[in-house]
């Protein structure tokens, strides 16, 4: 019970921690006070509890594939929010944004963190709820939860300070790259969920690296959390992964174009930060 609680909690915590760290770095670069993260975490916890308590019923939807569809939906919404977020980030790194745009920017951050927590937290809540019914498992599970969460949060903290420690020009670039990876990862997972639900057709396997780097190993879990590593991804997943990353790149370009366009319209100097 110990080891699987470590793996389970670690995986879910790390994914959320990476997102939070990167978004906190962006907030900091833009001088946004970190109060939003409290709202995001609170909303995420509430969402996770609701999701966990209704998981059994949600699973029965759409002919017993409701869980996959909901997960895919959440993942796609996260990608959408990240896309809008990056466009605005790209815009505000060049020109001053309006109050309205700043509000959308913060809303996107809150939405991304709380949605990611809803999906990942619900799994943890279900697991802990299951364990609490069996007294003999409580101690190893709680110990494992502590270790898994400790490793995940530590990785997030070091990532946060690592990004902040980068030269100011590189921090946003690295942050955006990480978000692009997360977006690709979520896109690939969403496709996997929909394939599992048989809403999308099966496609051939792209490669099989399960012999060299099994998904179940520690390195496999780490690579999964950062890059969405899978030993046997399907072709559709690969396409989705690239598309998810391209979305982020494209939206950064959209933000850049909007900034250039805006600068041309406005007298120089007034808009420049």
């Amino acid at each position: 019970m110990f080891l699987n609680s470590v793996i389970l909690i670690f995986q879910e915590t790390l994914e959320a921690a990476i997102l939070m760290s990167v978004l906190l770095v962006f907030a900091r670069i833009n001088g946004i006070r970190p109060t939003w993260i409290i709202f995001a975490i609170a909303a995420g916890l509430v969402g996770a509890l609701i999701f966990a308590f209704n998981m059994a019923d949600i699973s029965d939807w759409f002919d017993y594939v409701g869980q996959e569809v909901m997960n895919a939906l959440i993942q796609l919404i996260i990608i959408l929010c990240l896309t809008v977020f990056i466009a605005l980030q790209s815009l505000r790194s060049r020109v001053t944004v309006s109050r309205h745009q700043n509000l959308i920017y913060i809303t996107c951050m809150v939405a991304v963190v709380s949605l990611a927590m809803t999906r990942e937290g619900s799994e943890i809540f279900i697991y802990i709820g299951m364990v609490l019914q069996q007294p003999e498992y409580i101690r190893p599970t709680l110990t494992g939860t502590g270790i898994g969460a400790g490793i995940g949060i530590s990785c997030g903290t070091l990532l946060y300070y690592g990004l902040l420690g980068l030269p100011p020009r590189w921090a946003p670039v690295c942050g955006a790259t990480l978000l692009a990876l997360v977006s690709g990862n979520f896109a690939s997972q969403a496709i996997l969920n929909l394939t599992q639900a048989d809403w999308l057709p099966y496609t051939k396997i792209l490669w099989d690296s399960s012999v060299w780097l099994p998904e179940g190993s520690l390195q496999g879990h780490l690579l999964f959390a950062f890059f969405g590593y899978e030993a046997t991804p399907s072709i559709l997943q690969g396409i989705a992964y690239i598309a998810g990353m391209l979305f982020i790149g494209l939206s950064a370009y959209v933000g850049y174009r909007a900034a250039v366009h805006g600068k041309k319209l406005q007298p120089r100097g007034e808009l420049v930060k």
Partner: protein
Amino acid sequence: MGSIRVFLIATMLATMTLFNFVATLQGYQSSLEEAERLFDNHLSQMVKLIANLHVEHMASNLNQSSDLAYQLWHKDQLVASSANSPKGFITELTAGFDYANFNGYRWRTLVHYAPDSDYWIVAAERTDQRFVLAEKVIIKAVTPIVLGIPLVGLLVWLIISRGLKPLRNLSFQLKHKQIDDLTAVKIPDLKDELEQVVQSINDLVRRLGSALEREKRFTADAAHELRTPISALKVQLHNIAEEVSADSQSFAQLKSGIERMQHLVEQLLSLYRFTPEEFANQFERVDIYLLAQNVLAEQHDAFEARQQSLELEGSSCYIEGDPFSLGALLQNLLSNANKYTPFGGEILVSVECSEGKVYLKVEDNGPGIKPADIDKVFERFHRLQKNLDQVFAQGCGLGLTIVKHVTELHRASIDILPSRFDSGCAFVIQFNEV
């Protein structure tokens, strides 16, 4: 980069947690493997024991436990078995370790063939029991590491806070240093890294202090030295007055120029007349209301000349202060109001006390002060709206600097707020009541 303390604590704790926990996981895994090996050894010993025992003694000699099962096969016939073993084969009869599911549990199985007697011995042990047992032992070793992290966090917090104390002390002292406090910064128990910083700061402060002192003395001396020639000029002016015609414009300009020079010199002198230390010694109980009455009476003519109404309201309020400089303060505020308020304007002086504070307000319905200018008005030689009208020409731009100086000497505060009239501003000075 935010707080150094938070950065140090967070990154140190994260690094320690990461390495500690990963090491713990490694330890857990190797301990578990070792335990598995031990259990497997135990199972193979049991198999050998069964092989050596006579079949008939088996039931009585082997204690029956629910998490152990065995079967003894001879030519595909079940010769003996434990009560909890299934009717059929537990697992395929291939020598070696394997797993099997029966009785609603998962079992670790060992098949052993005894060639001399042609017996197949199958022993099985419940994996969940083995696992729970092994894990229980290991978890006991792991739990303190997890529980220790908050303790480590607390210790790291305390150590880093202690280590950064001189730095915090320094920043606290610098933050709470009064603008005119030019004494050296003192940090007890100075660390090597900070010594140079404190030394440089104190050096700067000392040099700044002496520069300010020189400036003050120069101004005061110059003003003082200028007084005599100006007095002489005035006498000469008085003498010439009889010789020139009454409506000579040059003479009028000369006269007003000399008066302005005299005013400037007097203002400069009153600005530097006192230092804070000698000042506090002369404090006495002052009735601000009475003082205001006197100043208003003195200044009445100037307001009359511009047809402005000047009113005083309130009642007696007492503060600790120096009546002379307080008089200068109010004079300057009033002449300021007089100059900036147009012809026929209203000026209202009020004195009130509430909750241990005494408020002296001078309000007018003049043009007011733009928010952006509020900080600037107290600067020396700063003038607003340079060409407002001729009366203004008499100002020298030191009045509000003197006001600010006197309020600071009295440890009072001054604010510029909108006045109660439609336009104009209110200078509100807040003293401590006695």
